[in-house]
């Protein structure tokens, strides 16, 4: 128990955020907005890790390290994804997923 806030509140919050991200990923067509939905999903998972670490295992730091690694992987993923998006924009002028049906020219 975190001073009146049970762990369930954190878990419900991150679940809601996760599925909002899923909704955005399914609905959006623009590649950058899909990338933003993925950031939402990763962020909700980070909240889960941190809440589990602090409330259920206060003496440990595993959840914090996992969150740090998730943030690093998210940064790497965002940079590569944006390089790919800019490359696609240079070849076919818009960046909707429907126009991407070839892997190689």
């Amino acid at each position, binding site marked *: 128990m975190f*001073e009146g806030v049970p762990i369930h509140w954190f878990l419900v919050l991150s679940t809601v955020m996760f599925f909002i991200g899923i909704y955005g990923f399914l609905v959006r067509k623009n590649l950058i907005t899909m990338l*933003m939905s993925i950031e939402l999903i990763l962020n909700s998972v980070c909240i889960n890790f941190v809440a589990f670490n602090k409330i259920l295992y206060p003496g440990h730091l595993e959840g914090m390290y996992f969150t740090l690694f998730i943030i690093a992987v998210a940064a790497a993923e965002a940079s590569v994804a944006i390089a790919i998006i800019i490359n696609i924009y240079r070849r076919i002028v818009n960046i909707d997923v429907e126009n991407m049906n070839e892997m190689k020219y």
Partner: protein
Amino acid sequence: MTNNQFMFLLFSVVIVVFSLLTVTSRRILRAATFLLFVLVSTSGLYFLLRFNFLAAIQLTLYAGGIVVLIIFSILLTSHINEKLSIPPVTKRIYAAIAAVAGAVLCILTILQTEFVQKTFDPSRVDIHTIGEGMLSTGKYGYALPFEVISVLLLAAMIGSIILAKKRKD
């Protein structure tokens, strides 16, 4: 209602509302700004849980780095006044059904689970402890993942430079 409950509810309302706006806004630059609000209030949650180092990382790397990268690429690839097309109704309905069903299932499971919750430990994590855990090879040490992550970041950097540079032909 305690202070912590109030702050938690405030942050969670901000997170939920701005997440919804992020995935539904029709102007893409506004969507990126709403994403920034979501990430900043997530770092507020980390401050609430006394993970100060993690909250600072979240602010600098996520809110400072990734959002700026996304905004740059938005400015490079779309016009500022351009509005995204509204997705078709059937697609929205199917996606909403999938998301709501998944969320309801997960929330019901979470609320039925009993967790063994410890008393709250208000101490902050020492930066020395974090660094030693990150580089130790013993029990609870994370030296190998740390090195793997650094190689991954290097590979991502080289890869994105090669992908984004101009072709000769």
